[in-house]
């Protein structure tokens, strides 16, 4: 009998475990109202994990956030397996129309993409949108090209080939960067266009921010794009970019927040790249938390819906103070106000939750 127990019992336990994993999809994502489940973007993960940790200590509510990528976050929300999703890029009209119910976008903070490079002495360079696009299109091949030296007269640039480094994995960073280039350059807009993965005209691909910055650090004459947070942590050089108003703007948390000082639409689905704001850094974007407008689905209780909404409210208010110390640009007041209005429109059936 001992053997029976030794062999069969573990098998039964394991198979029940597996079964319950598989069955989880159809269940209410929140079995326990003291735990909230979220999934999505990897970019704001350090920020979210700090805020959620503080929230847990203050309110005793545990938030389980899985940073599986924006695409995954959207898919999970559409399958209703999480309480909230998270995405770097706003969902497209097409994606929204394929979703089972109305989904709302609540911005949580701002991210910026910087242009980094590896040159002798790492001088601070300036780029205009045209030059940047031409480099990434492979039309400018040398660092001492007249187009680059014309805008950087104070820097002596070497006769070195430019090696472009881009992300090899599908990523929100690539989306923001290509969204910017599509806006400022007609040729880029026609091909390769904007997306999370592109058919790059030139260059090497590396996985993740750490892959791109690693390759840039190693390869003399290389240029790549990475998230501002990552550049700040690793002290990488970053170029100043000429924005729409004609000012050369250095990438910083302040200039990222400033980029959001524009007329924001009511649903907050807006691309901030090539911003109209005169002090704004031109390659910025909101990152979003996503929830269903009607929180009554999949046998959710009103209490767990309320918990989800108050968590998001916490992120856009009290949570903002943790953004800057972690290298994220906090939401400007106007954006917080708009986000609040969106949260007020969330209901449980017809009853507002805030």
């Amino acid at each position, binding site marked *: *009998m001992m*053997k*029976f127990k030794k*062999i*069969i019992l573990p*098998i039964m336990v394991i198979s029940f475990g597996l079964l319950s994993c598989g069955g989880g999809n159809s269940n209410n994502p929140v079995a326990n109202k003291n735990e909230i489940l979220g999934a999505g973007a990897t970019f704001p993960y350090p920020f979210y994990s700090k805020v959620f940790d503080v929230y847990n200590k203050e309110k005793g509510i545990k938030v389980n956030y899985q940073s*599986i*990528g*924006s*695409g*995954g976050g*959207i898919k999970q929300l559409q399958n209703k397996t999480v309480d909230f999703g998270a995405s770097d890029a706003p969902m497209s009209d097409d*994606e929204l129309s394929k979703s089972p119910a109305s989904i709302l976008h609540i911005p949580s903070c701002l991210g910026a993409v910087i242009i980094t490079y590896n040159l002798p002495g790492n001088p601070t360079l300036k780029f205009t949108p045209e030059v940047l696009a031409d480099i990434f299109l492979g039309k400018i091949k040398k660092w001492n090209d007249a187009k680059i030296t014309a805008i950087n007269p104070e820097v002596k640039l070497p006769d070195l*080939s430019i*090696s472009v480094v881009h992300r*090899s*994995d*599908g*990523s*929100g960073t690539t989306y923001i960067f290509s969204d910017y280039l599509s806006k400022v350059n007609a040729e880029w807009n026609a*091909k*390769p*266009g*904007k*997306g*999370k*993965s*592109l*058919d*790059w005209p030139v*260059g*090497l*691909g*590396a*996985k993740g921010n750490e*892959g791109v910055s*690693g*390759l840039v650090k*190693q*390869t*003399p*004459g290389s240029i790549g794009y990475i998230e501002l947070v990552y550049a700040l942590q690793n002290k990488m050089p970053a170029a100043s970019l000429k924005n729409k108003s004609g000012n050369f703007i250095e990438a910083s948390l302040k200039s990222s927040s400033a980029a959001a000082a524009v007329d924001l639409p009511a649903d907050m689905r807006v691309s901030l790249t090539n911003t109209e704001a005169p002090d704004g850094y031109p390659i910025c974007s909101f990152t979003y938390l996503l929830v269903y407008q009607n929180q009554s689905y999949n046998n959710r209780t009103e209490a767990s819906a309320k918990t989800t909404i108050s968590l998001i409210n916490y992120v856009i208010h009290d949570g903002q103070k943790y953004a800057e110390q972690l290298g994220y640009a906090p939401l400007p007041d106007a954006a917080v106000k708009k986000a609040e209005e969106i949260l007020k429109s969330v209901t449980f059936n017809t009853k507002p939750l805030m």
Partner: protein
Amino acid sequence: MTGISYQAKRINLKEKVFKKTLTLSAITVVVILIAIFFTLLINSMPSIKALGTNFFYDKTWDPVADEYGALPFLVGTLLTSFLALLISTPFSIAVAIFLGEYYKKGIVAEIFKNVIDLLAGIPSVIYGFWGLFVLVPIVRAIEMKLGLPPYGVGIFTSSIILAIMILPFSVSLSRQVISMVPAHLKEAAYSLGATRFEVITKIIIPYTKSGLFAGLLLALGRALGETMAVTMLIGNTHEIPTGIFSPGNTMASVIANEFSEATGKIYTSALVEMGLFLFVVATIINILGKQVIKRFTLS
């Protein structure tokens, strides 16, 4: 009496349950393999329908324009795998002869065997890191000397790493077949005045050649599917490589890179189709290898 029959029944039951458990585990493994195949097939249907055979010879992979041709990755996969095989073959045969003929037993043999087995146990991301920090600068220096673009990463770098990674797989099989060469054959050669070198080249290698070939096939199967280390070192471009120093991409690496953020039915499905293709190729190579080993052991 009743006590004995009760006990006999209990033993009987134990036997039955034990056998059932074993059968069930064995069936589960087969079912999982078939299930993987069908999952891949079903999920790649949208792409098979939409792209047809274009998938295999279209040179453009452009998720923005919804155009998916796997040819550059197919070429990249075959190029890195066969180049790796080419680099590792002389080493693996030399090591196999060393361990199968010269040092069959003893402390030296044990140390070498363990070290080679250890090579197989190193996580592939560590090979990737080592490649990035040690191999890439060396290859870059070579490229600068040759006047090529100093990427450092590319087909050549990934092939070297792959060659090291697949070495243990071909060595372990080759060593076994070499030590299986009948002693009377070797002794006959020695008695005719053959040197050790002649015994190896005239007796051992001809006798074991299909076994050695099977070892290489299994190693090739491993090289085709290797993902992480290659992703870190190959340069990840969507173009057909023009030479062994140019960057490229492999099928496994594209799937790993793009799947998590892939949106859209055809895009996801095209990535799955690539997985299906890789699965089929790896299976065929494995079956071929096993078949060759079988024939070798029968004769």
